[in-house]
């Protein structure tokens, strides 16, 4: 036994030294690597090379304390395909480009209108080094400008734009955030449609504005959601619990700050493929702004007003969605999840049924307070 273990060890040493000779070329230090912070994909003017890829690179500084201002480098390249553009990008850099830290992919609005999103999606998913938890967004007017803008408030190492998507920073009810994997599953699966935020710029203030969204559905033109509808989507999908509803009725005008929302959706199929969507929504919150002075004892009245207002807004939202046949909340999926496969209508039938669906909206509001003052 003793002898064998000694032999074993000698053998291990031998193998190890052999392996030492084998390896050596893939050792690459971190300072020989450039990290990409975000990727922008645009349509180029050159029709032979329709894709324009822009990447934002982190430029590391030796101490973030000494130079708190962010530094970036940018690379742009056109290509016939996306991977060609990326390959060309790599020839521009003296260091290895590392896509592993890219957290945001911005797609130019024009590309979206040209219906190139599937091609882009394919590449993003296929490359193993691109995170599936990177955010996807639409850049308006194009991705390149968005990528190249650095807001004044930005600090080193963490681009300010990430804060819009990350729940750590602003919890704005107006910005949608979509992960790459979520984008994919909504694109390829039937019964639920993808939604992507739109990033706009306010050039003079050097700020981003993210309060609109695009809904993408198979074989349809992308549909833009207004900021109000984006917020309603966020509330309804329960992505974000907060939201503002402006009530302006019967001489009362106040803003209800919603901080909790509970909703239940059901899809009921009646005879001859008539669909009814049962929506049961409970809103809780407080009054955050009012033009008149408010009375705590009349909270039930305010609740009624809020209910009426919410009902109106949400009905408007759904009418808009149903008419165009978009389904960002996934009612089609809900339908599939509750019906056995052999009893389901086909997806085309469902599309028609969805367009003509009847909405049964039931809203309960529970304002608990008028804020710190009456």
């Amino acid at each position, binding site marked *: 036994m003793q002898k064998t273990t000694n032999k074993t060890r000698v053998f291990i040493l031998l193998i190890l030294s052999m392996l030492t000779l084998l*390896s050596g070329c893939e050792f690459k*230090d971190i300072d020989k690597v450039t990290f990409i912070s975000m990727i922008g994909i645009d349509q180029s003017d050159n029709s032979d090379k329709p894709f324009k890829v822009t990447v934002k690179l982190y430029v590391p500084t*030796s101490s973030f304390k000494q130079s708190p201002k962010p530094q970036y480098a940018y690379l742009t390249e056109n290509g016939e395909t996306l991977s060609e553009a990326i390959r060309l990008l790599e020839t521009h850099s003296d260091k290895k480009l590392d896509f592993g830290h890219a*957290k945001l992919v911005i797609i130019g609005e024009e590309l979206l209108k040209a219906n190139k999103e599937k091609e882009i999606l394919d590449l993003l998913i296929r490359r193993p080094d691109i995170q599936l938890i990177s955010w996807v967004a639409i850049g308006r007017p194009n991705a390149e400008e968005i990528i190249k803008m650095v807001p004044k408030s930005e600090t080193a190492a963490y681009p300010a734009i990430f804060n819009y998507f990350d729940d750590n920073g602003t919890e704005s009810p107006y910005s949608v955030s979509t992960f790459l994997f979520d984008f994919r599953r909504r694109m390829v699966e039937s019964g639920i449609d993808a939604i992507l935020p739109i990033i706009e710029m306010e050039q003079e203030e050097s700020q981003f504005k993210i309060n609109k969204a695009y809904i993408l559905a198979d074989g349809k033109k992308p549909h833009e959601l207004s900021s109000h509808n984006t917020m309603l989507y966020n509330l309804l999908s329960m992505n974000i619990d907060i939201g503002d509803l402006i009530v302006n009725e019967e001489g009362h005008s106040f803003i209800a700050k919603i901080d909790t929302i509970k909703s239940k959706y059901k899809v009921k199929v009646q005879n001859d493929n008539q669909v009814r969507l049962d929506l049961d929504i409970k809103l809780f919150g407080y009054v955050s702004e009012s033009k008149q002075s408010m009375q705590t004892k009349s909270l039930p009245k305010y609740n009624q007003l809020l209910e009426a207002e919410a009902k109106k807004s949400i009905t408007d939202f759904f009418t808009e969605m149903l008419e165009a046949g978009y389904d960002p909340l996934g009612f089609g999926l809900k339908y599939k999840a509750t019906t056995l496969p052999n009893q389901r209508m086909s997806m085309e039938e469902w599309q028609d049924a969805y367009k003509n669906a009847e909405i049964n909206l039931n809203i309960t509001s529970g304002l608990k307070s008028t804020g710190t003052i009456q």
Partner: protein
Amino acid sequence: MSSQEMLRWINEQFKGTNQLTEKTLDYENKYIVLFYVKSMIDKALLQKIIIKPFFEMANEHQLRSYLLALPQFQKVESKEQLLFEITNGYTLVVIQDDLFLFDLKLSKNDQVNTTTVETTIHGSQLALSDNLLTNINVIRSTYHEPSLVTEFFTKGGANKQKVAMIYDKEKVNKDVLNIIRKRLQSVDKQVISATTQLNNFLNNKRFSLFPQMIMTERPDRIIYNIAGGKVILLEDGNPQSLAAPVVFFDFMTTMEDNYHTLLVSIFLKTLRYVGLFISLLLPGLYVGVTSYSPEVFRTELALTVAGSRIGVPFSSFVEVLFMLFFMELLLEASIRLPKVVSATATTVGGLILGTAVTEASLSSNIMVIIVSAVAISTFVIPVNEMAFSIRIVRFLLLVIASLFGLAGLALGLFVLIMYLVSISSFGEPYLRFYNFQKQKERTEEHI
């Protein structure tokens, strides 16, 4: 062999040296001869219990009975024993043709020391002494079981030191006992001057990375180990003892763990194991992340690391090796230096390694932090011997991580665990978990 011949033989052995003192006492028809080595015996005691009574006794018969009754008395069995005992501080008394030995040894080293290696806040501050008998006395007086057995061996061809093997015969594992006894008997070395040397002699392997026995100077630890069924080895002239067999977890425990309240000791133990993993893995992790998979860490951290490496002329592997090497030098230096100088060494070393190296951008800031974290967490390992082994293993893991990246590091850790499980300390598996609720889950071993 008659006593006369024996005396002649003894005298021959000491011929040419002026070590052996021969003293003849003759008074009122009483006649005895004393032989002793002057430097070894307690002269006051000799005067008190042998010389003075000699002059007071009425006759030789009474004197002989008196001497036989003394507790220091020992029978003479062979001439070799006689010679050995005389060199060991015994006094030989010759009455007519009879030889008597008396233990009048003078020890200057029987004071117990205070703990220096395994210092604790709680518990006894006293360690063992340099004297074997005192040590046995210390152990005996805190372990009151009749089943405690002490066996003596004489080891070392040249210096013939006494080695004692102590165990509780009811608790000890018989197989282990036999292995140790056998190996102890087969030890054939000229000079054995420290107990810890036995660690190497009893372990049949030439290259063994991990200690097979645990060294301790604390009597409470010895008692704890004896009660746990271990065998303790003590050597005369040494304030350290060895316990065997050991398992890996012994090296991660201090005696204090038993003295603290449960939550405190769980916290301390967790701290220690986290420290162990940090000191093993951190350098390798740094190399693996910076040179193979920079996308593993979150972006901010990766950028900080990348930024701090700007201008460093070495690749990460050389950088880590360079810094670790200096840390090890500093460690070694501060052990060997006299206490007065060692403070200077640490200051100089800390200054050079900490500040100047980064100022000169020979190493990144983060590297300095990593090296100090590694150094600190190495100190957390309570038993010194294990800390030494860990320092070596750390370099091995660093090399593996530099060759194969993070996956290599993880595999290296698994192989290390496997190696620890596969080796044995005197037949017991070195690393395994014990289920204390079901101790007799199965009748152990030898599969």
